[in-house]
C-alpha cells in the first residue's frame, strides 16, 4: 500500500455536496479487470462533453487548477457505491488529499466522508481530511482569490498550511490506526497474517449456530 507523510501541492475546489462514487467513476469503467487506467475517467460525466472534449463548465477543468493534487469539497464526499475504483481514479488522476467538512444536522455531527470511501482511500494512500464548514469556507475563498494556491499537508503533525498570501493553518484529527497505516504504507493483509494463530484459535472453537458462553 502507498504511504503518505507530507504533501505539498495546488488546491482545487469542487463546490458540490454528496459527490457520489457513481460520479467519481461512472459504471462503464467498472468493467475493467485492471487496477490502473482510471485516472483520465475520474468525474467523467462532468469532465467531458458528449463529443469527448473537456467540458469548460466543469470547475475542475479550470486551467488554474492544472497540476492540482489537493481537493477541497463539500459534505458527504464519496457516498454511494463501495467501488474502490473511485479511489483508484482519484489517485491515478493525481489527487493525494481530499478535504471535506463535517456538518451539523439536527444537532448531530455528520462526517464529511462516506465510511466505505474513507476506508478505501486509506488503503490506497489517499488522505481524507475533515475540517469544519467554516474552515472549508476559508479554503474556498483562499483558492478563489489566489491563482495556484498551494498548501502543505503534514500528516505527522496533523496540519495543513496554506502558503502566502493566505497563510492559513488548520489542524485535523485522524484515528491512530489510519495514521499509522498511512505513514508506514503497511500492507493490511501482511499485518493481519501476523495474527494467524488467533484466527485459527477462533475457528477451532467456533460454530456459527451456537453462541460461545462468555
Amino acid at each position, binding site marked *: 500500500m502507498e504511504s503518505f507523510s507530507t504533501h505539498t501541492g495546488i488546491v482545487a475546489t469542487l*463546490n*458540490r*455536496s*454528496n459527490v*457520489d462514487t*457513481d*460520479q467519481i467513476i*461512472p*459504471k*462503464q469503467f467498472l*468493467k*475493467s*479487470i*485492471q*487496477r490502473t487506467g482510471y485516472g483520465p475517467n475520474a468525474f467523467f*460525466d462532468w469532465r467531458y462533453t458528449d463529443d469527448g472534449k473537456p467540458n469548460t463548465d466543469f470547475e475542475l477543468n479550470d486551467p488554474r487548477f492544472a497540476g492540482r493534487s489537493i481537493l477541497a469539497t*463539500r*459534505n*458527504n464526499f464519496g*457516498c*454511494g*457505491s*463501495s*467501488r*474502490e*475504483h473511485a*479511489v483508484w481514479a482519484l489517485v491515478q488522476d493525481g489527487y493525494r488529499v481530499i478535504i471535506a467538512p463535517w456538518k451539523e*444536522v*439536527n444537532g*448531530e455531527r*455528520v*462526517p464529511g*466522508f*462516506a*465510511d*466505505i470511501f474513507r*476506508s*478505501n482511500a486509506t*488503503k*490506497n494512500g489517499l488522505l481524507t481530511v475533515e475540517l469544519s464548514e467554516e474552515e472549508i469556507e476559508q479554503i474556498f475563498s483562499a483558492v478563489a482569490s489566489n491563482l495556484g494556491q498551494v498548501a502543505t499537508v503534514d500528516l505527522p503533525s496533523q496540519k495543513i498550511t496554506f502558503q502566502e498570501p493566505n497563510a492559513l493553518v488548520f489542524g485535523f484529527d485522524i*484515528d*491512530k*490506526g489510519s495514521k*499509522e497505516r498511512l505513514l508506514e504504507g503497511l500492507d*493490511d*493483509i501482511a499485518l*493481519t*497474517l501476523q*495474527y*494467524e494463530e*488467533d*484466527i485459527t484459535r*477462533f*475457528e477451532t472453537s467456533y460454530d*456459527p*449456530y*451456537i*453462541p*460461545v458462553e*462468555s
Partner: protein
Amino acid sequence: MGKTLFQKVWERHVVRELADGSTLLYIDRHLVHEVTSPQAFEGLRLSGRKIRRPELTFSTMDHNVPTTEDRMDIKDPVSRAQVEALSQNCEDYGVTLFKIGDRRQGIVHMIGPELGLTLPGMTIVCGDSHTSTHGAFGALAFGIGTSEVEHVLVTQTLNQRKPRTYKVEFTGTPGPRIFSKDFVLKLIGTIGTAGGTGHVFEYCGEAVSALSMEARMSICNMSIEAGARAGMIAPDETTYAYIAAENRPYAPKGDQLDRAIAYWKTLPSDDDAAYDRTLTIDTSRIAPQVTWGNNPGMVIDIDQPIPEPDSLAGYSRADVENALAYMGLAPGTFLTDVPVDVVFIGSCTNARIEDLRLVAEILKGRKKADHVQLLIVPGSQQVREQAEAEGLPEIFKAAGGEWRYAGCSMCLGMNPDQLRPQQRCASTSNRNFEGRQGKGGRTHLVSPQMAAAAAVAGKFFDIRKWPET
C-alpha cells in the same frame, strides 16, 4: 447494562482487539460478484496467497448480465471479459459460483437469503454497498472495497473500527399502499444521506415487526443511502419461518435448525440496551414517497410540490439548483403533473416475489400508457420461476411490460438496459444519482406500486387514489 443486537453479533466475532483501537472481526459469509472482485483475485495471484476458507465464499454474476432472451451471449466484449474472469477465478480458487444460466443466479443480495446463506447472527460482507440488505435477518452485513475483498479472501477476517448504534423505531400502522420503501425513503429524507454515517441502524417497532422478510430487506437495503454501512432487524418468528421454508439449501435443518433458533432467540436487543442515537418515525403519517433530485435524501410526499432552492435544510442553494437543472424540474411543480418515459421494476431493493405480486395487482387488466417503456426485471432466477408459477408474467405482458431475466439491469445500467439522456424514469431501485441509470437519465425512486401506477397513468400518480377493484 443490556446489549444491542449489533453488540451481540459484533462481540461474537471478535478475533482480537488490536493496539490501534480497531478490531479483527471474523467473517462468516463472503459474497462475491464480477465487478468488485477481479483485482482482488489478481492480488492473490501476485502475492501467491490462497483463499483461507473458500467454502465460506459464494459468488454470482449480476451487474453485467444482459436480461434479454439472448443473455447467455454477452455482446459487450468488456462485460464478457469480466464475467469470464469471475468464472476462471472461481474455478482456480475453488469458490462456488452461480453462473448466468444457473437457476440460482441473481442479484447477489437476492440469492444470499434465498439460498439460506444469509442467517441471523452472522457477519456477512460483499464488495457491494447494498450488502446492508442481509441485515434484515439480524446479521451484521456491510459493503467493503476491493482491497478488503482480498483481505477477507486471505484471512477470513476484516479489520474494523466499531461503529456506533442508531435505533430507528417505526411505530403505528401505515395507511393503505404505504410500503417499507416509503418508510426508508422517509427516514433518509429526515436525517439526510449522511445522517447515519459511522453508525449501524437497528430498525424496530411494531411497524417493522409486522413486515414480511421481503419488505424488511427493502428497508435494510437502503441503510447505505442514509450513510449507514449496515442496518439490522432482530430475528423473530417471521425470520425463522423464512429460513425454514423449502429451497434454502444452505440453511440449517432439523436439529441443527432448532439449535440455531435457540441461539437466534438470544440475539434481540435487551430492553435496557442503550444506543448512541435514536429516532422514532410514526408510519401512520407517511405518505407515498418520491425523490425529485439527485440523491435519495431529496425526497417529498407525492402530494407536495418540488421545493424552492432556498427552502431545503441540509442543502445549499447550489445543490438544489444543480439537482433541478439536471432533473429538468421547476420548483413548485407537482410530480403528479410530470410524465414518465420509463418505468423500471427491479433491483435488490424491490425485485422480490412480493414486489412483483404488488405490481401485478396494479397492472392486472390494465395497460401501460403508450409512451412509457415498462421493464420488469426479477431480482433472481428463483423469483422469475416463482412469478411464472403464479402467472404474473402474463399480467405484465398483457399490460405492455417487458418481462426479463434476473440481474441488476437498469438499476445501474452496466448491461444494455440504460436510460437515454433526459429520459425520466420511475424506478424501484435505490439510487437516483446523476447518470446512474444511463448518462443524462433522470431517476425518481418510488415503491413498486407507485412505479406500476406511473406506468399506467403515464405520469406520477398518488397511489392512495388508485381505484380499488
